[in-house]
């Protein structure tokens, strides 16, 4: 019923694009508004392809992010894992939500994600300006309907009916 396109290539492609977007140089004015692309895309795939993109994907992606950002090894991995776990746990419920409600859920998930990063930074005594951290969360939740629509279109409409 599904081609290899939507089965493996598409999710992998989107995750790689998310990785590229998360280190793309941006003008200094908007750099602190960069949404957490990897987390958002991973939330999407654990909602709609929960069997394929699980914890190991989250774990490895997190390690790659840690290396890219030079953060503590395991920090992003832990945050992504936790978000994936919660999304997986509730995926049947979340994906029948209307779009605005889904955005609110994504907001909550991203807050958790950012909080975990913030917390690890704090425990490891790394310098963290606390105020700048929450703009990406809000932007991410605002972008969710757009990302959801475009990803679902890529995936093919049949996936949206459960």
């Amino acid at each position: 019923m599904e081609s290899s396109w939507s089965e493996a290539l598409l999710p992998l492609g989107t995750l790689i694009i998310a990785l590229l977007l998360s280190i793309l140089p941006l003008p200094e004015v908007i750099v602190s508004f960069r949404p957490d692309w990897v987390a958002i895309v991973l939330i999407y795939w654990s909602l709609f392809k929960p069997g394929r993109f699980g914890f190991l994907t989250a774990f490895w992606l997190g390690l790659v992010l840690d290396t890219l950002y030079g953060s503590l090894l395991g920090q992003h991995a832990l945050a992504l894992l936790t978000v994936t776990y919660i999304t997986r746990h509730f995926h049947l419920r979340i994906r029948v939500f209307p779009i605005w409600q889904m955005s609110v859920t994504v907001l909550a998930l991203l807050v958790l994600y950012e909080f975990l990063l913030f917390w690890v930074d704090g425990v490891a005594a790394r310098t963290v300006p606390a105020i700048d951290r929450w703009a990406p969360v809000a932007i991410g939740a605002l972008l969710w309907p757009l990302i959801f629509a475009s990803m679902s279109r890529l995936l093919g409409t049949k996936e949206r009916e459960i």
Partner: protein
Amino acid sequence: MSFPGESSDSLEHGKVYLGLRFLGLAIVCLTLMFADHQKDHLSLVRQALGVVIYPVRALVDLPFKTWNWASSNLETRSAMLAENQRLNSALLNASVRLQQLATLEAENIRLRAILDSSARVRERVLIAEILSVDLNPYRQRFIINRGTNSGVYVGQALLDADGVVGQIVRADPFSAEVVLISDADHSVPVSVIRNGLRTFAVGTGDSKRLRLPYLTNSADIQVDDLLVSSGLGGVFPSGYPVARVLQVVRRPGQFFAEVFAEPVSELDHDREVMLVWATEDSQEATNLAAEVQ
């Protein structure tokens, strides 16, 4: 679309299984973080991951590199001529000053020989390019395109045409991570060139500002004083310009003065930086310098 085990019994079973897997990987993450935080236990893992992600960085850097290449190749003749002229005059200026420097250096070595102190440490340099990738926006860091394969090591100092830029904090075979002197976790031992007063310049997280927190109200420091690296601590070679004092606020009630300085190097506009190796033997350094030229 159907899922394996949608019946309630095996669904429960699946959830327990999921929870266990999550727990296992989370423990792995915590262990990794712990090991990474305690010194260099994971430097090999880091290096391997660094090699794995190098293509990602190179891919992001590619359009910027191409753009630079294209714009430098498509420049008009007149622009090239103008630039050539400018560079020629700059070179003339520099070589005139270098001539003076050569005599001064010879004199310095002679005087030191008279005083029987060791000759000044000479340095070898290598140019590295900065990759156009963003790191964590909260920290003043960047990636360069040279790694341990070119002899880069952790703790090595970086300079640009104007002064001190930062030091290497992590190196893998093809690239290395640099922390700028303006990073909030970084400080440079400096001395005031006017009177030799020694202190530290601490980063603020803003690439245009350094803080000098350990100067008392009575310290002899003024606006526009040039701070050079003092060479204490052994990371930064001594005598390179670091920053110029911007503002000195003395509050009578407080013990320390509030002093801010602006880095002389263009921390946020650099495309190329120089890596510095200190060589103890000045004879060897001269040979190396000749080799480099």
